């Protein structure tokens, strides 16, 4: 069963324990300056954003049908059956199509490096494969970030809304956005008020390009028959003309 993360913005106290745990898991530096950078970057793969008195966590959504993995020309990005979208830096040639394609603008790049890599959260693929929780979920002191089976977390999110309808905005973000994501959000206010993108399509994005790409064999086969046929007809006409001794124009071949 695919794994997921449920982030409940109403429980989050903005302590940034998730940020520290994430930095440690990736071996990235973490200090007060970095803590104050409220945006994800190549050296900070998750962040807490402050929106007035509300907090919201940003991390890779690990989409169910990720645009990044579908666009990667070398297959460096893979959607695993466990849920995380993993990245193999040794394949990546740095075209950055994943960054362009991501509807959540999650992938970041090591811009100042001479041998740069893309960086993003992979929902602790290795830890979860070993049966451990994600570093962020383990570190969260108040249970705002919870790691578990996606189905169970969806049920739990719905239950929380049902139990305390006055405390929650009555939707789960990530349920249907771009066809569903592995990170689910609960909030007290409409999602756009805490900076989540609500203009993303409700269908999986990879379909948009696949619809065209899958026509490729048809285009190639029809095209070659058509072009070959046209060549045969037009050149036959020229051959006949030549045989009949007519001039076919300034540059007749042969």
């Amino acid at each position, binding site marked *: 069963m695919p794994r997921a993360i449920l982030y409940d913005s109403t429980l989050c106290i903005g302590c940034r324990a998730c940020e520290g745990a994430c930095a440690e898991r990736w071996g990235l530096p973490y200090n007060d300056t970095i803590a104050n950078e409220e945006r994800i970057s190549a050296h900070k793969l998750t962040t807490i954003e402050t929106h007035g008195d509300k907090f919201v966590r940003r991390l890779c959504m690990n989409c169910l049908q990720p645009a990044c993995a579908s666009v990667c020309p070398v297959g460096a990005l893979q959607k695993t059956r466990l849920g995380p979208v993993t990245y193999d830096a040794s394949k990546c040639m740095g075209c950055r199509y994943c960054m362009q394609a991501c509807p959540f603008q999650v992938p970041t790049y090591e811009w100042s490096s001479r041998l740069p890599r893309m960086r993003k959260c992979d929902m602790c693929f290795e830890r979860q494969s070993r049966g451990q929780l994600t570093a962020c979920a383990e570190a969260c002191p108040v249970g705002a970030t919870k790691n578990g089976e996606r189905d169970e977390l969806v049920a739990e999110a719905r239950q929380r809304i049902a139990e305390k309808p006055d405390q929650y905005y009555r939707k789960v973000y990530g349920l249907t956005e771009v066809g569903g994501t592995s990170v689910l959000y609960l909030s007290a206010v409409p999602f756009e008020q805490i900076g989540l993108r609500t203009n993303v399509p409700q269908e999986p994005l990879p379909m948009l390009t696949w*619809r065209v790409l899958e026509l490729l064999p048809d285009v190639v086969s029809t095209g070659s028959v058509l072009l070959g046929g046209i060549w045969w007809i037009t050149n036959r006409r020229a051959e006949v003309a030549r045989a009949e001794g007519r001039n076919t124009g300034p540059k007749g071949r042969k």
Partner: protein
Amino acid sequence: MMIGKLPKITVWRAVFAAIMLSGLYATWLRVFYGLGGSTNLSDKFPWGLWIGFDVMCGVALAAGGFTLVATVHIFNLRKYHPVLRPAILTAFLGYILVAVGLMYDLGRPDRIWHPIVMWNPHSVMFEVAWCVILYTNVLFLEFIPIVFEKLGWHKPMEWVHRISVPLMILGVLLSTLHQSSLGTLFLIVPEKLYPLWYTPILPLLFFVSAIAVGLAMTIFESWHSSRAFGRALELPLLASLARVLAVVMSVYLWIRFLDLFHRDAFALLTRNRTETWLFLLEMALLVAPTVLLYQARIRRSPGALYACAVMVVFGIVANRLNVGITGIEAGSGTHYIPKWSEVAITLSLVAVGFAIFRVIGQYFPIFEAHSSEDAAAEMEETEADPVAVG
């Protein structure tokens, strides 16, 4: 003649040298300080001028190669033969420069070969990579007979000639695929690309406009090479090419009109936004030459014909930049102005393209049998040819 010409060449050489020096310095920045030190790209805006212009415009402007190959060899319209070789040369140089541009833009240019062995058939970029690699090889084989001819190597010329028909068909197919796929690339960003440009038929629009700009580039380079090499302009030929261009442009503009109409996108034009003005600029550059080229007076005047070709080229360049850069800014929630070094590299690539074209045009039989006397004869011949007029 020589005295009048020399200072002009010196000015151009000075400009060329200045561009190349700035390009060299920018290259140094790119190599030692990475993309961060040489570009204004950011996590929110990962593609800039090098993709928007060097790759997307580069490929489009090289479309004359496949358009003319199809016209001359597949549709067997032999009268266009005189402009075929310049078109193939432009395409071949264009694709090599696109590859060079990519070497700058890729974060890991040492891995540019990865798509050959690491496959993801679901990726548009993967398809583009394969098509561009294969088509560059096709262009090489379409170009190499010119070299063989110069060297007088008849045997290898025959070998290439033997595979020429399947080769040309393959070239046209590969071009069809990746010209349209450059549009498909942007189908994945429906929430980022401004709705004046985002449409499910982007691939179709990219393909049709590539044909148009390929024809326009053929007129453009014929005009320039006639000046550079002091040969007569193949005016009647270019005039009839311009007629085809007008029709292709009309089809293109009509599809765009229908697309905007069916998506109810015209209402967007009432908004006072940068995108509106950029769209109107693009449209002006595309509509004006289309209307003008329907008039015989314009088609027969070298200056006006050239101006129209330039407008089409600039119009399609504006389109590619709007789709690849400016139309994406608002949706990305950021602002992007290329760094000077990005512009320097782009200008250097264009300058190198012009320079190599000139050198090859001088030493290889690109413009065959086109001294002034021949051109006069050709003119009569073309005029007399019923196909040329009809």
